[in-house]
């Protein structure tokens, strides 16, 4: 074909495109890394979060119970309320105030009006329910989802 011959004669077959040094030599390694990243992304993160969710929730419950028994509830709420004023404080106060309102049994224990020895299994279950609800509120604020 005369047009093709003309082009080859005048311009040649080199397009002028180049690649960075060692581009092809390192391509397999970069490709493997990218594939590993994709495979890893698909398989692991959700599972890890899901795996640790109950553990985190349990740990949070444990810490909370220790805190509640060590410090009176009102003292705890006061110290939380003293955190620097910003948007998050409003949210925390909201959660804490709802905690105070919804934790009748915990309040009684904290105020010394009911002793733990007097509580039966049902009372303990109710109290655990109140604490779990409080942890969920805190988790809601911190953005961690708890089942």
């Amino acid at each position: 074909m005369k047009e093709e011959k003309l082009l080859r004669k005048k311009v040649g077959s080199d397009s002028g495109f180049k690649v960075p040094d060692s581009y092809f030599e390192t391509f397999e390694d970069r490709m493997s890394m990218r594939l590993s990243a994709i495979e890893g992304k698909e398989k692991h993160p959700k599972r890890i979060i899901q795996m640790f969710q109950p553990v985190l929730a349990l740990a949070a419950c444990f810490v909370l119970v220790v805190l509640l028994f060590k410090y009176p509830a009102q003292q705890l709420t006061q110290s939380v309320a003293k955190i620097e004023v910003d948007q998050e404080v409003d949210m925390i106060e909201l959660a804490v105030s709802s905690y105070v309102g919804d934790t009748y049994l915990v309040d009684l224990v904290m105020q010394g009006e009911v002793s733990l020895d007097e509580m039966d299994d049902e009372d303990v279950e109710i109290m655990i329910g109140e604490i779990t609800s409080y942890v969920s509120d805190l988790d809601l604020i911190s953005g961690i989802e708890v089942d």
Partner: protein
Amino acid sequence: MEEEKKMIQQLKHAKSKEQAFRELVRQYKERLYWHIRRMVLCHEDADDVLQNVFIKVWNGVDGFREDSSLYTWLYRIATNESLSFLEQRKRKSLGGYEENMLASVEADRFFDADELQLKLQEAILQLPERQRLVFNMRYYDEMKYQDMSAILETSEGALKASYHLAAKKVVDYMKSCDFIDFD
């Protein structure tokens, strides 16, 4: 042919997949890169598209029906990925698409062309995408019409006509620029 079959079987087998895939990348990366690069023009874009091609191969090799050769299948994926990339670029492009493409290739630090080579790229950019594809595969890669036909799923006769027309348009464009005497 036997080797290709063996490679496909290894690619479909979980235990040998990774090693066979590495070998496949080693064998085809350069050919596919140049095929893509001539379509998308910039190195960074060609690199992205090439990696996407191999990711598609990795994810899709289990479903490869083997009714075409591995070579054809890979080129088909690379062609489709390049065309999709260009389509996206065209949609996002404000103003003249060809001008933007040409400006980006001129700014590419991995484009080291003389004035004539640049002019040829400019002329090729004036062609419709499918014709540009045919021109590049034939002119630069010197690919057989038979292979092109399998990849582009177009008859050899249509490809010959398309290439002939493309080469004529390119020469006419270069003549019209009075850049060099083409007579």
